């Protein structure tokens, strides 16, 4: 998701000083970080639970 797979052509446009494909990579990394922050908050106890062990 964070790899700019869909950007192929070079465009000399920039947003905030970043080329669009770089901004995409940065923004998707931010989304990833926010998701991990949320998962750590919400699912920590599930990940820690003995019940997740598959016998």
């Amino acid at each position, binding site marked *: 998701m964070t790899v700019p797979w869909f950007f192929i052509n070079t465009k000399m446009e920039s947003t905030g000083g970043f080329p669009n494909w770089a901004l995409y990579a940065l923004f998707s990394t931010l989304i990833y*970080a926010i998701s991990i922050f949320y*998962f750590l908050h919400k699912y920590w106890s599930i990940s820690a639970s003995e019940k997740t062990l598959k016998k």
Partner: protein
Amino acid sequence: MDSAPLLNNDGIIFLFLYLFSLIGVGLLGYYSKKEDSLGDFYLAGRGMGGFVLFLTLYATQYSGNTMIGFSGRAYRQGFTALVTVTFMCAIIGLYFIYAPKLHDLSRKHSFITLGDFIYHRFQSIHLTIIISIISIIALGNYILTNLKAIGFIIEGATAGQVSFVNAIIILSLIMVIYETLGGMRSVAWTDMLQGLLLLFGVIVIFYIIYEQYGGLNAISSQLQINRPDFWTPPDWSDKRLWLSTILVVSIGVSVYPHAIQRIYSAKDSSTLRKSLQLMVFMPFVTTLFMVIVGIVGASQIEGLDRNNSEQISILLLVDLAEKIPNISWLIVMFLAAAIAAIMSTVDSALLAISSTVTQDLFRKIKPDSSQKELLLFGKSISWVIMLVAVIMAINLPQTIWQLFQIKLELLCQIAPAIFLGVHIKSISSKSILIGIYIGTLIALSIMIGNWIGFPIPIKPFGIHAGLWGLIFNCLAIFTIDRHKLKSSIKLA
């Protein structure tokens, strides 16, 4: 770089005062010990609070590479260096897979090292020893490359007033003294100072460079003329390499034995969780800032080769200090932050090796040793390891130096033992062991084969050797344990 010293005498005195103050922190750690036991020495009595835990995780995770390597990479490769921000975030996502359960297990069974978990989970001495040896080799390589880096930084900054050899000896001595005085307590407290210095240093340097040169928006038009290649998106092969880099770095770093010891050291799971929640955003104020500094550098200073581009941050600071003499203190801050970043990584790796040798190897041979004897052995081992590392860092010929670049490729091979071992009980020690052998053999064959001239690319199909090893490692595990895994899935 110019032959004039970056640090004047006042700067050198400040730097050495800071470095020797770390021994004072080591003494504080020594007097704060609760008992003479491995748990107290190597895990700070398992009572690390949120603030210290966060900063020690931060200082350990971000090495000198953050201050020097990332901005150099951005100078050379432009915005594709943003992959460094992604893999630093991805590491925390991987902790989420195993850290919650591993922390709970470590409390319940009093683990001290990674080997303790491996032995508890798989009941195999063979597997425990192999994983311990891989950890020791990877961490040893880490110490060696960082010691060498610190020698070059100090020799360069003082224009030879402090030589490469003396710099390595002095800093190694300081690290081993405070480490053996207070163990994890001293290391974590010095990490706290080093982490603050690193964070503050990166933010201040980024802010001043950004302000003085006008920021990315202002320089983008100039960059479009100087370096139009920065605007070209990575092609398919570079995109594969991008993904491979994220995977190999995040998987390798997430199983650092010294990071795992910090998971054990947390006071409770809530403290650990909050520290990791904060850590996931640190790449945006550390790695990203240094990448932008490198890109700003590319717009201001042209034509640096690979070695000189690694010094782009310092070249920008020197350039600024010539225009605005009042900010020459920034150079001292940059060097102090870079040295702090390196030291915090080396001391943690040293502590992890010392505990692994003591707990996973020596204790298995002499199970009746008292805690005092084990501690004495562990501290002695730290001195021996540091001595060997110093001798090797000073004397190793450049021709075999490549061998010591192998770290993450090896660590990737032990990841299945942790990720799968924590959650899936039906995975056997036999499959993990065979997987490690196959994965390590493949990764090393590709890398060493390329170095000695066999017609094999170092990253076949744009994928790192460590990742190829890991793919075959996992295939071996799932092939050997396929029947058990099928029944697990049915049960689940």
